[in-house]
């Protein structure tokens, strides 16, 4: 994997065994949750626009183990993996996706607008590019506070072509904000191949135009992703400013649940699925003695149970009362 800036190599941070296991746990959680989501929709038990994150599990898993609870993230409609990795509770998440009052946002936001400040999950936007200007604002508040907190802005390869990307990276650089821009390059923007919409072979090269370090990393390699995130997050914490990380990955399914993905190159897709990062990392953990087959099976079974419980909890919860329709448009009278 070529990189505009070398991050791997001797000073590359390596996750210890415990961290490796935690990265895998988050990957498995995301993979199993995505499978459960598609199953639930297919079964007709829930109706929602769903953007599968299958194939992109490594990125948020390897990033989030470098974050504290009070660090904050902004993500996009295809962001449930980012949210789960940051710690949004499964029950609250599922209840939101099911439009129930017990959801993170009382069912009013839905799958495209998950917010859970307690986990540092501040924004899920449905507008391409808009996670970045707001992540800058979170980072600006940390700088004003004089804290060492960090903000992460997740977005896709297609989003790197919209104006908000440009304005955000420029401002973050001139203000030296503690923010990391994570471009999850899954090769497609809806139905459009990367090269059809993007004028540069690597999004990370755009960092040069903002006097900011930029790196292209294998987003499906937990070690490479961990090292890149570790370096960028520490740079931000130390007040040395933002970094652009381009994490190469692939979307295993169509843009949104239900779209026929005829526009995708079947061979390309097959090759990526072949290298599915989740079973690959699982095998590596066993092979390197980080964990045993039994251990991982137990962990997966536990996740499966949690997901089932969350779905039951969600479907068993009430819908919001109709008064909620006009509540939260403005703060309750008297608030300030």
């Amino acid at each position, binding site marked *: 994997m070529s990189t505009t800036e070398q991050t791997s190599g001797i000073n590359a941070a390596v996750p210890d065994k415990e961290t490796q296991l935690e990265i895998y746990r988050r990957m498995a959680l995301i993979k199993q949750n995505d499978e459960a989501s598609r199953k639930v929709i297919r079964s007709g038990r829930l109706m929602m626009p769903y953007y599968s994150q299958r194939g992109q599990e490594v990125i948020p898993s390897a990033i989030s183990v470098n974050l504290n609870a009070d660090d904050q993230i902004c993500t996009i409609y295809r962001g449930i993996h980012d949210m789960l990795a940051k710690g949004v509770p499964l029950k609250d998440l599922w209840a939101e996706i099911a439009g*129930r009052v017990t959801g993170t946002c009382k069912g009013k*936001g839905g799958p495209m607008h998950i917010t859970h400040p307690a986990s540092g999950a501040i924004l899920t936007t449905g*507008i391409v590019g808009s996670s970045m200007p707001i992540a800058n604002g979170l980072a600006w508040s940390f700088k004003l506070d004089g804290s060492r907190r960090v903000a992460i802005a997740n977005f896709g390869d297609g989003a790197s072509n919209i104006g908000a990307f440009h304005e955000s990276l420029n401002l973050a650089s001139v203000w030296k904000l503690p923010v990391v821009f994570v471009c999850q390059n899954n090769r497609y923007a*809806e139905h*459009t191949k990367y090269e*059809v919409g993007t004028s540069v072979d690597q999004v990370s090269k755009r960092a040069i135009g903002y006097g900011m370090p930029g790196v292209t990393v294998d987003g499906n390699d937990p070690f490479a992703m961990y090292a890149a995130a570790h370096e960028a997050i520490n740079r931000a914490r130390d007040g040395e400013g933002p970094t652009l990380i381009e994490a190469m990955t692939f979307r295993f399914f169509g843009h949104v649940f239900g779209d026929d993905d005829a526009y995708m190159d079947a061979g390309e897709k097959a090759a990526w699925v072949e290298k599915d990062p989740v079973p690959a990392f699982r095998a590596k953990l066993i092979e390197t003695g980080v964990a045993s087959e039994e251990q991982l099976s137990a962990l997966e079974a536990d996740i499966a149970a949690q997901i089932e419980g969350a779905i039951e909890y969600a479907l068993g919860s009430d819908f919001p009362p*109709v008064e909620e*329709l006009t509540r939260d*448009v403005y703060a309750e009278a008297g608030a300030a």
Partner: protein
Amino acid sequence: MTAETKKLNIIQAINEAIAEAMEANPKVVVLGEDVADKEGGGVVGVTRGLSTRFGDDRVRSTPISEQAIVGAAIGAAINGYRPVAEIMLMNFTTVAMDMIVNHAAKLRFMSGGQTGVPIVIRMMTGAGIASAGQHSDFLEAWFAHTPGLKVVAPSTPEDAKGLMLSAIADPDPVIFIECSRAYGTTAPVPVDLKPIPLGKAKVVREGSDVTIVSYSEIVVRALAAAAELEKEGVSAEVIDLRTINPWDRETVFASVRKTGRLVVAHEAVKEFGVGAEIAATVQEELFSALKAAIKRVGAPFTSVPFSRPLEEAFIVQPGQIADAARATLKTN
């Protein structure tokens, strides 16, 4: 003798209109995200088949860059092309408002008539499909308040095709609003349909007691309300505005002169919406002809919610339109 017709849904109707315009005029070009066939011919297929038929030069998929999309359309239009630009969803016009409002709408005026901008900006929107807060807004009032723009919002396949033909032929920028909920609506459309002029409303149901003015998919709900009212012996006239700016004052005035009562219904939030302009104008022009206060029906002043029951409560229902009509009948 009735003209030969063909059943079309609104997606097919708009697709046919663009295809006929491209066939007739080589200057008609299409651009937008995923519009070419290699990218699936549009996320809902409105432009499907066009690039295969007319070539990749005339039908171009773009990066996710709405300012660049509208800007490219403006520049090409100034030099004689007739671009049909797609902004996938109406909420995404928010990233292109400078190009639409400060440029497309104003360049003819600011240049003293030297540079016209004959573009069509197509977009879909509407609640009811669980797209929630940032993908469902009806923002037509913003564009109707912008001198230099025309705003069109059809409710049937025939109108969608006929109005798109006129929008493409129009010398000025046209905002063309498509309701996602209505795309599947099928109806027979005359095979040799001629362009339907912009600025002309259509009386879709005649009545004598109260006038209901609406546009886009809410017209269907206004007709349902009229059917409900008929059971009560109330005869409602329903007008499909079709073009929001310029709107057809004559047709609306003629109806209100007859009924003396008016209800305006639309999907957008009621406050500061299009209904306000129509109500304000009618009370000003036909004050003495009014038998009751004009009623407006629109969404409550809130964002579009995700949760199904809240979303249902958000969208204007036939019952609300009927209630508004009943209210105009009480107070006389």
